[in-house]
């Protein structure tokens, strides 16, 4: 009870101070204020994402109100409410989960504050609640992986797939895109698929079992770099050379993955780009200027071969 009251008091105080400074920043001068609520700092990818947004805001001269939700939806809802009360010009956030946003987004809409989703989408029937969704197209990432394989496969090719966490959007979509592309190529076959939970040890353990039950694996397709790195360990332990005896395709392009690619252990990486800051700031400016923006904008992403990785590695940010 006492705790509740303290929390309530703190909230009131927060609201009061927020109201106090409310209209000043946006009304007086031309500086755009952006309220951004981040998921948390759960991975290197996310940290790079945060840094990109902060850096881009500084470069674009946008006043950034940053809030870290520590992977909790209630924190994020609270942050969005306080942005509404501060009357920021634009709200952007990466939703922690897909559902449960309608009420708070309606509040933003009533206050006439446009909302931009980044990186993750929300599941709502009312798509007028947000202006646009800026994020990666995971299906396209799967397609890119499949296309490289189709271009580089010679004859009969047996693929094993290391899936991400069961039910996670990137896992579902990266599988779908990959399957879509290789469907037209009967000589490329996925002979085994299993979840490695997006972790290194998961990837290693599953790959060990695959190597045991199949002696004709040509290619590993891992839904992220970490599982691919785990698979490399398993392949080495089995006395084979990763990248040569068994080719490896992964998605993400984090630092450790890029290093393995440059060293020749991985053959191809499809980038999942966290550096969406500049694109976000451009969108914020467009939205404030009342320009029409598409409902769905994809982050610019590329792919890396071994040579490209060697060239790109020295000035990678993450």
């Amino acid at each position, binding site marked *: 009870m006492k705790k509740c009251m303290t929390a309530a008091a703190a909230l009131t105080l927060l609201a009061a101070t927020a109201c106090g400074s409310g209209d000043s920043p946006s009304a007086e001068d031309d500086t755009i204020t952006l309220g951004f609520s981040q998921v948390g700092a759960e991975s*290197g990818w996310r940290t790079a994402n945060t840094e990109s947004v902060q850096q881009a805001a500084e470069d674009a001269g946008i006043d950034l109100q940053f809030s870290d939700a520590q992977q909790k939806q209630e924190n994020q809802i609270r942050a969005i409410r306080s942005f509404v009360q501060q009357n920021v010009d634009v709200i952007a956030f990466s939703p922690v989960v897909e559902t449960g946003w309608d009420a708070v987004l309606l509040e933003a809409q009533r206050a006439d504050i446009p909302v931009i989703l980044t990186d993750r989408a929300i599941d709502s029937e009312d798509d007028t609640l947000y202006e646009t969704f800026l994020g990666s197209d995971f299906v396209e990432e799967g397609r890119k992986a499949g296309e490289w394989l189709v271009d580089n496969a010679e004859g009969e090719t047996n693929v094993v797939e290391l899936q991400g966490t069961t039910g996670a959007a990137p896992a579902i979509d990266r599988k779908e895109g990959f399957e879509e592309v290789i469907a037209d190529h009967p000589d490329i076959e996925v002979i085994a698929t299993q979840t490695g939970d997006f972790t290194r*040890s998961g990837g290693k353990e599953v790959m060990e079992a695959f190597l045991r039950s199949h002696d004709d694996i040509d290619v590993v397709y891992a839904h992220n770099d970490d599982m691919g790195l785990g698979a490399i360990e398993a392949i080495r332990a089995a006395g084979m050379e990763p990248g040569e005896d068994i080719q490896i395709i992964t998605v993400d392009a984090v630092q450790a993955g890029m290093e393995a690619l440059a060293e020749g252990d991985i053959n191809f990486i499809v980038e999942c780009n966290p550096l969406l800051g500049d694109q976000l700031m451009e969108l914020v400016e467009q939205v404030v200027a009342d320009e029409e923006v598409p409902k769905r904008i994809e982050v610019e992403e590329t792919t890396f071969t071994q040579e490209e990785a060697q060239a790109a590695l020295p000035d990678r940010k993450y």
Partner: protein
Amino acid sequence: MIRHHLFWPVAALALLIVLNAVVNPAFLELRMQDGRLYGGVVDILRNGAPTLLIAVGMTLVIATRGIDLSVGAVAAISGAFACTWIAAGGHAFTAMTLALGLCVLLGLWNGFLVSVLGIQPIIATLVLMTAGRGGAMLITEGQIITINDPLYRQIGAGFLVLPIAILISLGVLLLVGALTRGTALGMLVEAVGTNPRASRLAGVRSRTIVWTVYVFAGLCAGVAGLMISSNVSAADANNAGLWIEMDAILAVVIGGTSLAGGRYSLTGTMVGALVIQTLTTTVYNVGVAPNAILVFKALVVIAVCLLQSPHSARLFGPRRRAASAPHRSEEVTAA
């Protein structure tokens, strides 16, 4: 024989291995490669080593009527600390020693809360379970720390014909067996778990014993954490040792040690840990669909637990109550 408390766990283990061998005959194959054994069974032993080690520590904790939920987080801290130390240029040996020292401190903390302050074990260790993973993430600054250290690799991925990890776990198991069953220590632990008050009145130093088992559990978790991170040469504070406390508790229970404390079986714990790891390996080897994995595992575990329950023992065995007497005495020889 059917009445022996390890009959069903051992049967389940055998059944799983047979299932693997039927689906994939190459599973049982063993060959020497670069001076090490290579095969499906070896994989089970190596991947199961951390769970087994943690389960040994957990067995003693549970025998004192306690529980340690923090072992997964402690494992994460241990790996995170060691890898960060090595990544900063430190020597692998110093890194491991310091990491284990840290885990002993964490065990002391748990033991202090339980034995001195008298906080319920499940709550006392819940503190570190939550805070510990946060601590591990602070150490690694939320990143996955990748290292490349040949010495550090040995503890989780190295071989001396057999995987070094399982040699460590089995060594600890034997040592604990000799120490607790060869001396009166095991009996004292059981006495504390059966009736803490009576044993204290009888002159058993229950506080010291309870405190010691938590420190030991912390140390086991620390070594397991080193194995887990060494196996992939990386510390992942988010995922290393995640839910391993549940696997360890399950291994202890499958092995026939009651959560109510008292009598414990180290052999049982070993069989339990092997059943759990074989189950995971079977899922990959047989090719159970990813979205059916949890259901499949749950079914096997439920089957073993049901068959082990006193009621089904009466159903399967001869209908005589007297039969429960020899059943008890067999366990004392465990380990």
